[in-house]
C-alpha cells in the first residue's frame, strides 16, 4: 500500500512538473525537453528492455517530422491529424527495416540500423521536390480549428496530453506481460525461445512500437519549431538520443527524461551564456561552444561511457538499494582500471548492455 502511494505521489509530482515547465523555461525549450524525452523513452524501450541498441532512430523521428510538416503545410491538416500521419509513416517504415535489422544482434544491429538511417537520409536529401532537400520544409503551421496555436505556450499545453499519453503507453508496454517477455529475451534469448516465445516477433513488435513513439515526438518537433530539416534524420541525432538515454540510465524509463533534461539544459546554457575557452593549440585564441556544439556532445559521450555507464537514475536506484555503493564508487575512482572493469563486469545489474 505504502509503495503504491509513493508511486502515485511520483506521478502527481511529474504531472505538476510538466504543467509548470513552460513557466520556468521558455516554452519552446520546455516542449523540446518533453519531445526529446519521449524520443529517449522510445529508444530505451528497445535498448533497455529488448537489449537492442538502435543507432538509427533518427530515421523514424525525422520521417515523421517531414510527414507531419508536409500534411500541415500542404493540406492544412489540424495538428493531431498531422502527428498521427507522422506516426503512421514511421510505423510503416519500421516494419520492413525492423524485420531486416533484427536478423542481427549486438554491435551488428547498431551498424545495420545506422546504415538504414543513412539510406533514409540520402533518400530525403535526393527527393528535393517533396522535402526541400538541404533547405528543408519551412513555415510549417500548427492548426486546430477554433483554437489559435500561434503562442508556443498554448501549443505546449495542447501537445502535453498527447505526449503524456505516449509516456503512459511506453510505461504500460514495459510493465505488461509483453514487456516481461522482452526482458527475458534480452537476458537470454535462447531460453526465451525454448520456452516457446517467438522471440523475433517480439523484437519486431518492440522495434515498431519504439519507432511509432519516436515518430510521435518527431512529428511534434517539426510542428513546434515550424520546420523540418535534414538534421532531423542525420546520424548525429541518432547518436544524441542514445547518449541522452545512457546518461539517464539504461532500462529506467524515468531516467531517460532526466538525461534529456540535463543534456538540453546544458546545451542551452552553453549557447546562451557564451562560455568560451581558449585553445592556443588549435590556432584560435578562443572558441565559443556555439561554434562547436559537437565537441561538447562528444566529450559528454566519452565521459559517460568511461565513468558513468549506470546513468543518473541507475545511480540513484543503486544508492537507494545499497547505500555503501557510494563509498565503493569513491574508492573505485582511485583503484586501478583493470580491477574496476573486472568488478563491474561481475556486478552490473541493469545488464542490458552485455554479452
Amino acid at each position, binding site marked *: 500500500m505504502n509503495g503504491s502511494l509513493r508511486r502515485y505521489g511520483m506521478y502527481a509530482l511529474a504531472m505538476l512538473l510538466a504543467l509548470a515547465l513552460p513557466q520556468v523555461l521558455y516554452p519552446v525549450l520546455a516542449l523540446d525537453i518533453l519531445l526529446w524525452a519521449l524520443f529517449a523513452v522510445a529508444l530505451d524501450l528497445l535498448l533497455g528492455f529488448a537489449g537492442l541498441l538502435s543507432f538509427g532512430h533518427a530515421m523514424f523521428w525525422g520521417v515523421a517530422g517531414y510527414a507531419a510538416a508536409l500534411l500541415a503545410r500542404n493540406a492544412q491538416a489540424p495538428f493531431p491529424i498531422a502527428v498521427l500521419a507522422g506516426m503512421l509513416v514511421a510505423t510503416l517504415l519500421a516494419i520492413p527495416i525492423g524485420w531486416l535489422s533484427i536478423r542481427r544482434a549486438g554491435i551488428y544491429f547498431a551498424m545495420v540500423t545506422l*546504415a538504414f538511417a543513412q539510406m533514409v537520409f540520402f533518400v530525403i536529401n535526393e527527393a528535393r521536390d517533396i522535402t526541400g532537400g538541404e533547405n528543408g520544409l519551412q513555415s510549417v503551421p500548427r492548426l486546430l480549428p477554433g483554437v489559435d496555436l500561434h503562442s508556443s505556450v498554448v501549443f505546449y499545453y495542447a501537445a502535453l496530453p498527447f505526449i503524456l499519453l505516449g509516456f503512459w503507453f511506453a510505461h504500460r508496454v514495459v510493465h505488461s506481460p509483453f514487456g516481461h517477455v522482452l526482458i527475458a529475451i534480452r537476458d537470454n534469448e535462447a531460453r526465451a525461445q525454448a520456452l516457446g516465445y517467438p522471440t523475433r516477433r517480439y523484437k519486431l513488435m518492440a522495434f515498431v512500437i519504439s519507432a511509432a513513439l519516436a515518430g510521435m515526438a518527431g512529428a511534434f518537433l517539426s510542428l513546434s519549431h515550424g520546420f523540418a530539416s535534414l538534421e532531423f534524420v542525420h546520424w548525429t541525432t541518432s547518436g544524441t538520443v542514445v547518449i541522452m538515454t545512457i546518461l539517464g540510465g539504461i532500462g529506467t524509463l524515468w531516467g531517460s527524461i532526466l538525461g534529456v533534461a540535463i543534456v538540453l539544459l546544458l546545451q542551452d546554457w552553453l549557447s546562451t551564456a557564451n562560455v568560451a575557452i581558449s585553445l592556443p593549440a588549435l590556432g584560435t585564441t578562443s572558441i565559443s561552444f556555439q561554434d562547436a556544439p559537437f*565537441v561538447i556532445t562528444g566529450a559528454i559521450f566519452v565521459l559517460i561511457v568511461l565513468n558513468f555507464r549506470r546513468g543518473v537514475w541507475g545511480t540513484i536506484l543503486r544508492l537507494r538499494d545499497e547505500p555503501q555503493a557510494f563509498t565503493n564508487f569513491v574508492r573505485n575512482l582511485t583503484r586501478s582500471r583493470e580491477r574496476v572493469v573486472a568488478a563491474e563486469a561481475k556486478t552490473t545489474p541493469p545488464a542490458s548492455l552485455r554479452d
Partner: protein
Amino acid sequence: MEPSYVLLQIFNGLVNGSFYALLSLGLAVIFGMLRVVNFAHGAFYMLGAFAAYIMLQSFGINFWIGIIVAPLLVAVLGMILERLLIRRLYGLDPLYNFLLTFGLTLMLQDAMRLRFGNQGQPYRAPAELAGVANLGLIAFPTYRLFVIVFALLVCLVVWYLIERTRVGMVVRAATEKADLTRALGIDVDRWITPVFGFGVALAGLGGVLAAPMRNVSPLMGADLIIVIFAVVVIGGLGSILGSIITGFLVGVVVALVTGVLPQLLATFSPDLARVLPLTQLGDTLVFVLMAIILLVRPAGLLGTAEAR
C-alpha cells in the same frame, strides 16, 4: 553498348572499392584482435588526409613522403587514444567502445571544423601521376589507376603479414582464443596497441590516397564510415581476405548497377529503364545491397554465424 564503356565503369568501381577495402580491412583487423568496432575509423581517414595536406601546405613535404608519414602520425594518435581511453572498456560489451569511438568522432570532426572550416581544401596530385594513362581499350586517369594498384598492393601485403608470418600467427591465435594463446607463453596484450595503430594507419592511408581525388574536409570521413559499416555487414567482419574481396566487389557492383545496368535495360525494355531510378541510386545502393544480404544470408557473404 561498347565493351570499353563497361570496362571504364569497372575501373571506376575499383577506385571506390579500393577505399572500401582499405577501410573495412582496418576495421576487421581491429575487430579481430580487440573486439572493438571503431566508429572513429572515418575520422582517422579524415585526419590522414589532413596530415598530408598540412605537410604539403606548411612544410612543402611532397605526396610520396606524405603517404608514408601521414599514416604513421595517425597510427601514433590512434595508439595514444587506445592507451588512454579504449583500453579501459575491454571486457565490457563491445557496444561501449562503439559509443566511445562515436564520441571521439564528434570531437575530432568538430575540432578540425573549427580550425579549417567546412570548406574542402584542394590537394594537388603529384606531377608524376598527373594526366591520363592509355590502357588500350580505355584511357584512365593515371592517379586513379595508381590508387587501385597501390590499394591492392597494400591489401595483399596485409594479407601476407597476417596469414603467412609469425606476427600474424600470434595475432590470429589471439583473435581466436586469447586465453589459450596466453597460456602458450605469448604476451597477447603487448600486441593490442600496435594492432590498433596498424588498423587506423590503414584508414589514414586511405585518407592520403583520397586527398588528391576528393577535397580535404573535416566531414569527408563522416558519411564514408557508414557506407563502410554496410560493406562490413555485407562481408562479415570475420576474415581478412573476406573484407578485401567484399570491398572491391561492392565497389564494382555499385558501379555496374548504376552505370551499366540502366543502359542494358534500355536496350531490352525502355519502359522499365525509365521507371527504375537506377542511375540516381548512387550511394543508397550499398544499403540496398546490405538489405538483400540481410534477407538471404544474415551472417554476411563470408561471415560465420558466430560473429554476431
